[in-house]
């Protein structure tokens, strides 16, 4: 980084008011190419930003007679957007890296999130299986948004529910991540689901 003057900041209209007391986050997950970045971009009120993490990967399993681990540095990027809810509350949306093994890089990314949106693409449902399993293991509540790609097979919601092995209360909704209103509806569905979970005492 050079002089501080060269660091761009939020545009004047993107600044949060001083009254903003707290921020919450929602994570958008799913396999590569399912539309996470698209959804963050369509519903965010700021131009999406990227936060990075650098890590070193020990070269375990590399063919090496002496067992001396090689290390490679890898940068993992996560894009995110923001929605101002009120003068006190702001909501952040994180489009997480598709590879679940990178999630731990960001403290509390899932543990602290209100909930998650799992995006699925009916052409390759299985790329989102691992992600759903991880959320279940961590007890993170989620809804499933089915991105409607024109060349994708269309399944009835109940067939999808069965294939994804989801309990009846988990919402499954169709969406077009490119459309702001559609992405907003997905987030509203998640919030209503969380609200119902809390009313039943099932939100941990």
């Amino acid at each position, binding site marked *: *980084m050079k*002089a*501080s003057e060269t*660091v*761009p*900041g*939020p545009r004047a209209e993107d*600044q*949060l*008011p*001083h009254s*903003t007391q*707290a*921020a*919450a*986050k929602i994570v958008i997950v799913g396999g590569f190419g399912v539309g996470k970045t698209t959804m963050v971009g369509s519903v965010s009120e700021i131009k999406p*930003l990227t*936060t*990075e*993490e650098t*890590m070193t990967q*020990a070269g375990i399993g590399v063919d090496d007679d002496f067992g001396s*681990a090689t290390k490679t540095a890898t*940068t993992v990027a996560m894009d995110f957007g*923001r*929605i101002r*809810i009120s003068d006190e*509350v702001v909501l*952040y949306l*994180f489009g997480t890296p598709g590879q679940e*093994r*990178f999630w*731990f*890089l960001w*403290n*509390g990314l899932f*543990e*602290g*999130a*209100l909930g998650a949106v799992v995006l699925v693409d009916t052409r390759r449902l*299985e790329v989102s*299986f691992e992600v*759903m399993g991880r959320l*279940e293991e*961590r*007890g*993170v*509540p989620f809804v499933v948004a089915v991105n409607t790609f024109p060349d994708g*097979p269309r*399944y009835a919601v109940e067939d999808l529910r069965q*294939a994804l*092995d989801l309990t009846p209360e988990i919402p499954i909704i169709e969406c077009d991540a490119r459309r702001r209103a559609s992405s*907003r509806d997905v987030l509203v569905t998640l*919030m209503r689901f*969380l*609200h119902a979970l*809390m*009313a039943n005492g099932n*939100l*941990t």
Partner: protein
Amino acid sequence: MTPPQRQRRRPEPPPPPPPSPRQQPAAAGQEEEPKKPERLYTITGTDGDRAQLDLVTLIVARADPPSSATPEETAVLRLCAGPLSVAELSAYLRLPFSAMTVLLTDMLAAGTVHARAPIVRQTLPDRSLLEAVMHGLERL
């Protein structure tokens, strides 16, 4: 056409918190044995304790930059004239998230910034907050 079939998983008990680097000094020149697959990866360039900063902890400047401020600190203080999340600071300063939290930990200790804790699921006070977010989104 039949879709592929998934199998639901059960919640796992939360893993014990990782030991801090200070409690577990690695012997010099010796590779640490990875325990879980995730342990194959270590965040580069972190040392010592970091404040528990979340991606969405809001940071606010408390003071004008002291004359001793580094360019990074000066930039943080300028950007945080109003509240800004750690994630946004990391993006604008182009610093990895872990490096950003190290810098902010120092600044919090020096009292030049303060932090507003995030809203997290485990400690949601009541339904009104969920309702506020829900209604805010409905109005979009």
